[in-house]
């Protein structure tokens, strides 16, 4: 029998539907990979093999009964531990939510289970999704399955969806959910040689996702290839009245619409993304991407996004501001940790609980957010940032009068060793330089693998589309995927 853990979403669904193997066999194989890799990679906070088997048995029973199977039938997935899962610990990788077992299911995870997917476990991440290397988790670092040639140094799987990227690239799951606030799907996907798409803001319901920065947070799939992302995004997306910013639009048939023929399409190359001192191999992979899209029939046009250099500082005002407000709910009263020193009053309990429950990066962002929202500074920082955000959004609107989709690198470098940037928050923030602008504008954006650098580490290319045009992003991603011929996977050392 084929090793089913080498298969992706589409192949597993097809094999289960045709009866080549059972959903239970698939779940058992991935459960075994999850268990075998846990000590080395730490990709999961909680494994739920019984949930994966339960969902698989239901799919096998449905198939035997001749019932129609869902889009994700028989596909076991990893669930980022930012999605509330009923009865299964949901922590956002924080101490303050350790032991929290939601009484309800997030909309996105519910839709995936209804489509026939099963849960392998809850994936590790940066604490409250704040980080780019998965080093801020209370439950320990995730270790990338990738290593530099000739080195055993532990590398970052990217963040915040670092458990998701590690699990998919190490074949612990054929696909996983991610969430993207400033690049948290695309950057880890690029670091680990997999694909991931953040849809238009509002496509996926935020209901039941632990909130970080609500005007930016979007869920999306991370998988081995573009088609798998299209299938899984269809299962995740859709209108939800419980999310005030949910888009009341039908979900397009992205999988059926896949088409790598780009004749008549224009691809924009933003000149401001070609920065001084850019990594030569990243620049080379970008040039490869341009050649591949040309080969697919697209016309390449030079575009300008003049406010690019202001996107990161804008993000690092708006995201902490929203986080400081969202995280006010963790007070030791309704759920999660409570630290009640002897003789403490209510206010002391709040401050002690939050001090004990949040990690350093979370505290840093709460402080920055509180500062930029405080009386006297609100206009100078927060209002100014929201105005610059409008300008960044205008930049994209103008650019899309001249092109259909934008091509750029996903990250300024390949993955870096754990610990490299931990003492320098600003250096860590700069990792998001290419991913943050699309987040600020709410646009769909995807990372696809482009190749390996000289050290044997994956590099990703990013496609940014017009609002609601996930199809254009997926199609250009597919054109790159077909030409890049990326088949590398991490050599198994765990």
């Amino acid at each position: 029998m084929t090793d089913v853990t080498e298969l992706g979403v589409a192949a597993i669904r097809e094999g289960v539907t045709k009866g080549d193997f059972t959903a239970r066999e698939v779940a058992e194989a991935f459960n075994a990979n999850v268990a075998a890799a846990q000590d080395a990679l730490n990709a999961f906070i909680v494994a739920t093999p019984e949930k994966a088997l339960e969902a698989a048995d239901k799919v096998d029973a449905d198939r035997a009964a001749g019932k129609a199977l869902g889009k994700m039938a028989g596909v076991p997935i990893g669930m980022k531990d930012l999605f509330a899962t009923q009865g299964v610990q949901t922590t956002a990788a924080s101490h303050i939510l350790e032991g929290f077992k939601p009484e309800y299911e997030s909309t996105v995870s519910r839709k995936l289970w209804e489509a026939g997917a099963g849960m392998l476990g809850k994936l590790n991440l940066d604490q409250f999704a704040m980080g780019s290397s998965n080093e801020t988790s209370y439950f320990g670092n995730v270790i990338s399955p990738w290593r530099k040639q000739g080195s055993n140094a532990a590398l970052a799987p990217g963040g915040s969806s670092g458990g998701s990227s590690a699990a998919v690239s190490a074949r612990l799951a054929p696909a996983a959910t991610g969430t993207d606030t400033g690049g948290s799907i695309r950057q880890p996907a690029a670091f680990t040689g997999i694909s991931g798409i953040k849809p238009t803001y509002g496509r996926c319901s935020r209901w039941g996702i632990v909130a970080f920065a609500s005007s930016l947070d979007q869920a999306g799939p991370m998988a081995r290839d573009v088609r798998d992302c299209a299938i899984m995004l269809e299962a995740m997306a859709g209108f939800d009245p419980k999310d005030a910013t949910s888009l009341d639009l039908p979900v397009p048939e992205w999988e059926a619409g896949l088409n790598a023929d780009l004749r008549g399409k224009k691809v924009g190359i933003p000149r401001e993304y070609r920065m001084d001192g850019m990594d030569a191999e990243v620049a080379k992979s970008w040039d490869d991407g341009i050649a591949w899209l040309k080969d697919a029939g697209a016309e390449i046009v030079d575009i300008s996004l003049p406010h690019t250099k202001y996107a990161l500082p804008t993000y690092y005002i708006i995201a902490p501001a929203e986080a400081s407000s969202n995280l006010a709910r963790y007070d030791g009263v309704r759920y999660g940790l409570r630290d009640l020193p002897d003789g403490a009053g209510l206010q002391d309990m709040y401050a002690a609980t939050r001090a004990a429950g949040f990690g350093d990066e979370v505290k840093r962002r709460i402080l920055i957010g509180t500062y930029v929202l405080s009386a006297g500074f609100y206009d100078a920082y927060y209002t100014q940032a929201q105005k610059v955000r409008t300008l960044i959004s205008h930049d994209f609107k103008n650019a899309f009068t001249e092109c259909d989709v934008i091509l750029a690198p996903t990250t300024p470098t390949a993955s870096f060793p754990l610990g490299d940037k931990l003492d320098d928050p600003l250096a860590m923030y700069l990792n998001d330089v290419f991913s943050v602008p699309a987040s600020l504008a709410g646009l769909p954006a995807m990372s696809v693998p482009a190749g390996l650098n000289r050290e044997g580490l994956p590099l990703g290319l990013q496609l940014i589309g017009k609002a609601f045009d996930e199809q254009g992003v997926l199609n250009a991603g597919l054109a790159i995927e077909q030409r890049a011929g990326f088949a590398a996977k991490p050599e198994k050392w765990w």
Partner: protein
Amino acid sequence: MSVDKATVAKIASLARLRMSDEELDRMVPEFNNILAWVEQLGEVDVTGIEPMTAVIPNSLRLRDDVVDADPLTGGGKRDAVLANAPAAEHGFFGVPKVIE
């Protein structure tokens, strides 16, 4: 603009984060580094530009005026609401005494 330790302590107090002296000492330079970096936004000409309120045009909806229109977010869920409380007593959230 640069902030001092007293300012960071004030912000921490507003954010209900208890911080030790050592933590404050460590945070002050980090805080100032980040502030110095974001201050470059001040150089952008935003004359006549409205602050962003919604990245994707959308209008706020009203739900149907029906009790428990969506049972997931409707009422009658006291036990579920209290299930994760650190101290639930007599059907309420328990907190330290706040009235002398």
